[in-house]
């Protein structure tokens, strides 16, 4: 019962953080709100018994990725008029309408799924070594490909962000 209340609190925090991200006009504030939401998502992972993912979420998402975002925002050092113009006419109306439809569909699907009974026992405590065993046996090829993708991304970023040579 206590777990349910903690989950509701964390979920509320995540949703408020997401709304704050959309409501603030300053990108730095948006990024900080998103960091808060990502921390709340890490707490949800903890409540669902995925400790390793919770730690990876904080280190990779709230740490590395959001620092990259803040770094770029500050590197570009945008003036007020470079943030873009006001939204196009009806952009808010159609955006809200579409999102409301999407939310209705998703939430109704989530409601129906509660009636389903899943096969197998629910995970109580998945140890990190179980996860690692799966990662290095069944998903070994995917693991290696992921490391290759990171290497390609690293090289690609350097090529993209490098200043073009003079006269080239």
């Amino acid at each position: 019962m206590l777990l349910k209340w903690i989950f509701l609190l964390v979920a509320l925090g995540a949703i408020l953080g997401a709304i704050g991200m959309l409501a603030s006009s300053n990108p730095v504030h948006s990024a900080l709100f998103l960091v808060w939401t990502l921390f709340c998502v890490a707490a949800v992972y903890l409540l669902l018994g995925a400790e390793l993912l919770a730690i990876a979420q904080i280190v990779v998402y709230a740490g590395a990725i959001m620092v990259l975002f803040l770094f770029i925002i500050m590197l570009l050092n945008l003036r007020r008029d470079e943030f873009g113009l006001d939204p196009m006419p009806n952009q808010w109306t159609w955006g809200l309408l579409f999102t409301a439809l999407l939310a209705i569909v998703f939430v109704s699907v989530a409601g129906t799924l509660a009636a389903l009974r899943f096969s197998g026992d629910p995970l109580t405590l998945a140890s990190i070594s179980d996860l690692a065993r799966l990662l290095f046996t069944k998903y070994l090829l995917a693991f290696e490909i992921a490391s290759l993708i990171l290497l390609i991304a690293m090289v690609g970023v350097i090529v993209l962000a490098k200043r073009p040579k003079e006269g080239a």
Partner: protein
Amino acid sequence: MDGGIPLNWVLALSAILFSLGALGVLIKRNIIVMFMSIELMLNAANIALVAFSRAHGNLDGQIVVFFTMTLAAAEVAIGLAIIVALFRIKRTIDVDQATLLKW
């Protein structure tokens, strides 16, 4: 779910966060905030994966989330490099100004 948190609550949270991310992509014109909204949608999908992984008693869902995080890191690095390159050319991060391929 074993007397703990009901599965549909977690899925509802995932659905709401995904919808908010979609809303951000639709109503914002600042490309950096749009990119953050995409990250929010990825996280919403990850929550659903972890919830189903727990409900099925199967760790494969958590592995997928692990790979999603890896790819998100690569994706963010590339995306932000593209934004920097775009800013060099156009001096703006308004997506409507990114019309270099339009003629």
